[in-house]
């Protein structure tokens, strides 16, 4: 009896050891599954956050909002998939035993023991199975079945962190560089950008952007700008309001993320010109021209409106008053976040600064003879609307002289195959002599 009890006890010990190893394998497999889910989720979240911060630094409100939404959606979907995959990878005791069977080449021993020990059918071969499996316990040590402690997904998380570490400082550096360039003379202190009002796509200001631009123009151009803004504002519907709200939200979000204040941004200086008005002026109908345009035409300058205004007191007066009275009051953030200058800040640049800005208009009055009035005409400058055509021409020996027949290209004889005939229709055509006269007569008629 004692011997039997001892043997049973030994069998139970062996079974306990086998099941303990299976438990250890299961714990390791489940740890890896959990790690996989967490690391992938972390990688996706960090990657998406880095992308959103970088987008907030460099992109406009709507683009930022779109990209941020896409990144958030992708990160959420990816995280859900990763967590679901991790959940599915969690191993039950039977599954852990099956995995150990495959990796340890145990031919189903562990899965069978796990099943039978959990209340399966008793068998007279059970002790044999336990002994047999215990003898092969070296094949299913946890370190052999699953040697890794950390999931490979940790690399993905690490890569996402490295990406974030590179992307966010890069975006911050780029933003600071732009600010420094603007503050330190990277952009012209005065004058800024010159643009023709006819080439601008004018719409109501982006509410997400703080007014941070100074606009210079003659009163007529400003009036035109005001008209176009009024038109655009009238055209905006519910969709426009929704887009404005989205822009506002995105702008605030961007400011939150970047920690940037609107007043930190360098001002943009924009000079508006009205080339259409200049052409109108040069057409000879001076009675209908606006005063500033008339002054421009007299001075032969049309590209720089401010240059004309400098010599036109009335225009200068209008230039100083019109923005304050109309544009500044009605539309405090006119023209895509531009703030119209008051009379002091709206002083136009000097003529010398405008020397290179005349490309938009002609240098001579229409209808005059440049050779007699101003000397030799300067070569016409190609504007943005012009184009060039390059023609290659070489001298030829076969150029026709006076009275000589026109140039005929030489015949080129291409080799023919056996099914082709030489292209000699006259030689192959045989017209009877009696018919030749008839043909001749018909054609002479």
């Amino acid at each position, binding site marked *: 009896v004692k011997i039997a009890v001892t043997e049973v006890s030994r069998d139970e010990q062996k079974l306990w050891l086998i099941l303990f190893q299976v438990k250890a394998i299961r714990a390791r497999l489940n740890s890896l599954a959990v790690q996989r889910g967490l690391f992938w989720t972390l990688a996706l979240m960090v990657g998406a956050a880095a992308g959103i911060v970088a987008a907030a630094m460099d992109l406009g409100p709507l683009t930022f909002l779109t990209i941020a939404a896409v990144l958030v959606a992708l990160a959420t979907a990816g995280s859900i998939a990763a967590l679901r995959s991790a959940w599915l990878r969690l191993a039950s005791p039977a599954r852990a035993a099956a995995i150990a069977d495959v990796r340890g080449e145990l*031919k189903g021993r562990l899965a*069978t023991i796990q099943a039978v020990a959990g209340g399966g059918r008793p068998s007279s071969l059970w*002790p044999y199975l336990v*002994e047999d499996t*215990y003898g092969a316990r070296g094949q299913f040590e946890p370190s052999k079945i699953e040697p890794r402690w950390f999931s490979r997904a940790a690399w993905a998380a690490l890569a996402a962190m490295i990406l974030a570490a590179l992307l966010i400082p890069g975006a911050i550096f780029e933003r600071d560089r732009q600010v420094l360039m603007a503050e330190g003379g990277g952009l012209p202190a005065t004058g800024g950008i010159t643009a023709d009002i006819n080439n601008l796509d004018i719409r109501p200001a982006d509410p997400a952007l703080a007014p941070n631009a100074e606009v210079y123009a003659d009163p007529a151009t400003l009036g035109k700008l005001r008209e176009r803004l009024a038109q655009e504002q009238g055209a905006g519907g519910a969709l426009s309001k929704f887009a404005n709200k989205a822009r506002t939200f995105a702008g605030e979000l961007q400011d939150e993320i970047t920690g940037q204040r609107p007043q930190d941004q360098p001002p943009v200086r924009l000079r508006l010109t009205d080339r259409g008005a200049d052409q109108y002026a040069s057409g000879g109908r001076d009675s209908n021209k606006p005063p500033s345009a008339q002054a421009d035409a007299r001075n032969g300058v049309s590209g720089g409106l401010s240059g004309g205004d400098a010599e036109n007191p009335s225009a200068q007066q209008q230039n100083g008053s019109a923005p304050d009275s109309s544009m500044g009051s009605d539309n405090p953030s006119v023209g895509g976040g531009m703030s119209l200058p008051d009379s002091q800040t709206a002083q136009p640049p000097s003529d010398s600064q405008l020397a290179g800005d005349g490309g938009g208009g002609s240098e001579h009055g229409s209808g005059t003879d440049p050779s007699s009035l101003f000397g030799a005409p300067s070569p016409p400058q190609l504007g943005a609307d012009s184009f060039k055509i390059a023609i290659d021409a070489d001298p030829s020996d076969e150029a026709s002289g006076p009275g000589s027949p026109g140039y005929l290209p030489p015949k080129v004889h291409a080799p023919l195959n056996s099914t082709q005939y030489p292209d000699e229709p006259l030689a192959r055509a045989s017209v009877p002599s009696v018919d030749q006269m008839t043909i001749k007569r018909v054609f002479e008629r």
Partner: protein
Amino acid sequence: MSEAAIAAVEMPTVADFARVFRRIQTEVHKVIVGHEQAVEQLLSALLAGGHVLIEGVPGTGKTTLVKVLGMALDLSFNRIQFTVDLMPADITGTRVILSADGRREFSFQPGPVFAHLLLGDEINRATPKTQSALLEAMAELQVTVGGVTYPLAAPYFVMATLNPIEMEGTYPLPEAQLDRFLFKVRLGYPGERDLVRIVSSTTGPEQAGIEPVFPAGEAAARIEDFKRLVREVMVAPSIEQYAARMVRATQPDNVRILGSERSQIQVDAVNRYVSFGASPRGAQALILGAKVRAMLDARANIAYDDVDAVTAPALEHRLMLNYAAHTDNVEASDIVEQVVKAVRGTRG
């Protein structure tokens, strides 16, 4: 595990099983040249408690194989040559009038079915009625004649041969009878080297002597012990599911047959070429065949590979192919191969 350790446990017959199995194989191969796989399948079916259908062209040693097996096992052996005019009573036996002490009375004369090993040669030449006479004997190990049931002595092992050619005047076996064979063993023509050995061993003056594996009178009991031992082999639930999935995958996607529960695995070839798939007996054959293989590998449990190894002999004859399969020259073996491939991916 060391030999001593295995011997120390309570079931030394696991090792005996493989040893005896190899010994029988050796005796059979004294006469049968080649056909190692067929012999192994035949012995597996015997020790799993099933019956075998042997298909092969004439002259491949079907009858010789069965005869030699009977001699090696030293069990009673009968042979029935099935012909078209064979009657059921010719197989099962009949009641005849015998006179004893001046009195005439009916007495049952056992037919050839009463033996441990029964060879039904060219079983497809008999009519379905006669073929069906074996049904009760094969399934229930008993014969009922004239309202009286006569038990058959265990072990009872039917080996029926089929000639795949000369189909004129033959009667294909009913599906119910086909399903009762555990395995279908194919015998092909031997290779050149085997053919030389066959010629040299069968045309000389001396015939190979077959020695019985078991002591006289012990064969039946020992074989029954081994059959019980096979049934003791343990099966993990995941492997039982695997076998069940394998059988389900042989059944075409037909609501009328399968009911509302569709098979998890759909094999295109099955849906296209199979009219009826394997029955639950197919799953039983898979597990029993796998158990024998596990014992041969000195294991007390079966593995997925054991199941895979017996799918061909256990399932091929259970598939009823449709006309499209015949026109496309598709064999049941091709379909079983695809089923195994498909189901193998679902191992737990």
